[in-house]
């Protein structure tokens, strides 16, 4: 007992931990649990929420726009995951081969990551429409333009970031392993796939995790680039927002003027959390197994 109080830092630990714990509790833990509670409620304002049970979840799962958004988001996340990581790794690989001016390239490739999503969305919508208007169309006119437009935007923004992580990974591949491979007569491809990639698996784990969860959580860029347009107007007058991703779908549901919609949006948000957390953890477990000990 005496030992604990001998060290002044130990005696005061609560003073240092306290504010952080309080901030974490106020800013994260409490809203998180309140959010889960609200997903079982009908509410307009948080303070007058009324418990209604599982109704919101049933409504959320029955909503065809939510299902559409889910599949669209999944397709987007998968495509962007592959492209961002392949291109990011390729850029990192090239820039660790001693190319002249590689520091400059690294900086330039990283820079798009510093621009906010909304701004980026508007800038790219101008770029795309500058090109598409020559053909009498717009990114808002075709689902496939909206999809690939968003993929291009995300690649442009994220490749540089992933590249930095891959560069760090590539630089830590032991020189002696590479040299041994060379002496044993391995080709460049063999060295890449048998030596380099297994050694950068930790980077691949983190990069695939980031790009997969980023893909699922994407909101700003989606809102600013297409906002869900174009819609398919169904014969009965309802519509499907063809380029609306999950986060935007939740947002749109929340601000629907139906008195029940806020609870439904909250239920969707909880489902969304479970989905993103589940996929993220599954992917981590999968890629971790492939990491090698150096």
């Amino acid at each position: 007992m005496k030992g604990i109080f001998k060290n002044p830092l130990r005696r005061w630990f609560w003073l240092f931990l306290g504010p952080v714990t309080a901030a974490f509790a106020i800013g994260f833990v409490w809203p998180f649990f309140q959010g889960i509670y609200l997903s079982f409620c009908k509410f307009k304002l948080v303070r007058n929420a009324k418990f209604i049970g599982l109704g919101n979840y049933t409504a959320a799962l029955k909503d065809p726009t939510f299902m559409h958004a889910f599949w669209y988001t999944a397709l987007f996340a998968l495509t962007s995951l592959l492209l961002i990581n392949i291109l990011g790794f390729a850029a990192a690989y090239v820039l660790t081969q001693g190319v002249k001016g590689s520091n400059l390239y690294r900086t330039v490739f990283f820079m798009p990551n510093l621009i906010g999503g909304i701004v980026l969305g508007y800038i790219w919508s101008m770029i795309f429409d500058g090109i598409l208007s020559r053909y009498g169309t717009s990114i808002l006119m075709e689902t496939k333009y909206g999809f690939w437009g968003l993929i291009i935007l995300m690649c442009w923004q994220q490749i540089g970031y992933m590249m930095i992580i891959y560069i760090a990974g590539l630089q830590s591949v032991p020189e002696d392993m590479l040299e041994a491979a060379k002496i044993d007569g391995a080709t460049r491809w063999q060295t890449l796939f048998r030596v380099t990639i297994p050694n950068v698996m930790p980077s691949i784990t983190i990069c695939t995790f980031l790009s997969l969860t980023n893909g699922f959580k994407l909101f700003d860029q989606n809102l600013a680039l297409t906002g869900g347009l174009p819609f398919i107007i169904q014969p009965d007058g309802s519509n499907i927002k063809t380029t609306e991703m999950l986060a935007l779908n939740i947002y749109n549901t929340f601000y629907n003027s139906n008195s029940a919609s806020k609870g439904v949006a909250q239920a969707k948000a909880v489902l969304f959390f479970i989905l993103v957390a589940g996929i993220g953890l599954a992917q981590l477990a999968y890629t971790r197994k492939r990491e090698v000990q150096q």
Partner: protein
Amino acid sequence: MKKIIALALTLVMVFALAAAGGTAYAAEGGSVYWLNFKPELDEAAQGLAKLYTEKTGVPVKVVTAASGTYSQTLTSEMDKSSAPTLFIIGNQAGVKEWGEFAMDLTDTPIANELSTDAYNLYDEDGRLVSIGYCYECYGIIVNPDLIEAAGHSMDELVNFEGLKAVAEDIHARAGELGFDAFSSSDMDGSSSWRFTGHMANLEYFYEERDAGGWTECPAELSGAYMENFKNLYDLCINNSLTDPKDLATGGHDAENEFKTGKAAFFVNGSWEYAAVSEAVPNATMIPYYCGVEGEEKAGLNCGTENCWAINDMASDADKAATMDFMVWLVSDPEAAAVMVEQLGVLPYKNVPESQNGFLAAAAAYTEDGCYVMDWATNYQPNVDDYRAALVSALNAYNADQSEANWEQVKTAFVDGWAVQYQAANG
């Protein structure tokens, strides 16, 4: 060294906590928090708030929601312990959504200042939940100088045939004249409401008139006047500075096109008067002529979405302070002058007369015995979603004006109404 660091960190934290806990609260006398809806009013509203505080000592806070985000801002602000005391309930959907949080304004001092009941909103129980503080009109803004320069006269613009003849003639000779008929009708968020919200009103209005007036949102539309909407919409997009194919993304400054004399017509409302009249002092406004029988007697679309409500959850002191502030805004000579200058006509007894030329045009039509086209558009169910679908359908139609694409517009317009009605009320 460690001790010094520990001490420094402790001090930082103490100050941080003190700063967080030290928020000043208003005096016992009550305060006003006005969540303003019109970005263009923000500067004047901040000035009025300051002036009021100087004169009376009552703190007034004005926050303006960014354009198009009022319901989002209101939703989050209403949940706070210091919620707005004065907010906007602009239409029937708003009454449904926020009416229960609004104080009944019947026979209150502000209600007694009103000169008309026409712009007030009541809930199902007959409670006066929000009260109009200004009204506006929209239609087609015209530059008479350009009409004459093209060899036409304003007297031709009395019905759709006349408007069509003039617009098509100007468009056909645009190269030679140096100006075109209509300014661009962009479909991006900053402009599409002029069509999906305002021009659409002509369809709703005539349906409403046939039904003998609406008192609540109808569950469905008949679409009986879709052809008339198409008449005017087609005229507008096909006789304009911009190729209809380029409207989806926007980026054309319609106001500037009109101000710089590049276009003779500009679809918009009375709030544009201050901006437009500097460059085009003769600018006036004509009704949405669309080929309806008897439309020679049509007037402008008059109404408002600018209606004040007092938050019933606020303390009595805050409610009283808010009431005093509202009355001051529409009765104090200095404040009322600013309000009129910014907002046009205020439906209150003790306010100066407006200099707004478009509202004067609206009054002139009414004096000539023309019917006012009221804002039936305020009934649009689930308005954001409804309009977004309409924009999507109009985008497709603008790019390719085929029958099939027009059918989509009709579906979004008519069937979309019923679907959104169900979504909002079901």
